[in-house]
């Protein structure tokens, strides 16, 4: 599943100001509301669900990457957003490093395969060091959007 199929472009945040996990997640869900990815009424419940998932084990999977996520009945299709933190966010990552690249996903409870396909695409692209490096250097939403499009077109990995 390509980035263009689930990333809500208007919700991309090139300069995430948060420095802890909860505020990072809250800021990203806020962006999804702004970008019409999720309903404002569901915002707090979605944040709560994502934090609950984090309690099971951090989604900070190493190499400065985190994929916070949850299922939520309020979405009809998988929606997501991307945020970049210059300073890094303390995310209790598995390797202890702060995270700079965050991909947040909210998926309908009955679509586990879409969630897997999105994780597959994110992880496949993020294994490429150039892609990670360019994302970290991106300054604007347009920069990120263009990088995601290039990744979708297999310009980083085949």
């Amino acid at each position: 599943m390509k980035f263009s199929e689930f990333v809500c472009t208007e919700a991309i945040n090139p300069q995430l100001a948060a420095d802890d996990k909860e505020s990072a997640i809250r800021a990203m869900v806020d962006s999804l509301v702004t970008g019409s990815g999720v309903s404002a009424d569901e915002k707090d419940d979605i944040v709560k669900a994502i934090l609950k998932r984090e309690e099971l084990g951090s989604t900070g999977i190493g190499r400065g990457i985190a994929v916070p996520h949850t299922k939520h009945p309020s979405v009809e299709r998988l929606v997501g957003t991307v945020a970049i933190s210059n300073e890094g966010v303390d995310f209790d990552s598995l390797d202890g490093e702060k995270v700079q690249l965050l991909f947040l996903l909210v998926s309908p409870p009955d679509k586990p395969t879409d969630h897997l396909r999105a994780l597959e695409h994110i992880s496949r692209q993020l294994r490429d060091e150039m892609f990670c490096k360019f994302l970290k250097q991106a300054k604007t939403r347009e920069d990120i959007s263009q990088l995601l499009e290039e990744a979708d077109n297999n310009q980083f990995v085949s």
Partner: protein
Amino acid sequence: MKTKEQMDDNSVSRTVTVVNPEGVHARPADMFARTASRFSSEIQVSKNGQSVDGKSILGILTLAAEEGSQLEIDASGEDAAQAIDALAQLVQAGFTEDQNIRG
């Protein structure tokens, strides 16, 4: 389920089926990589000919292993047999995840 097992001195391979309905998403991938990392053996996991490092969450996630997928686990090293047992058990037990929370 175990469908194949081969053994020589230091390398073991076994094919297991993903049984949990959610497939190998982030939490199972984390559990698999953590378990694999407890062993000194080199561990590879493959699905449909695509092979990745069994100690890398990112690698495992790129397999997008759904329920019913066959995963071949290959371990080579001193503790290969123990590693295969632990990893096969983890997969076959469905990663014993809480079904109400997506990992």
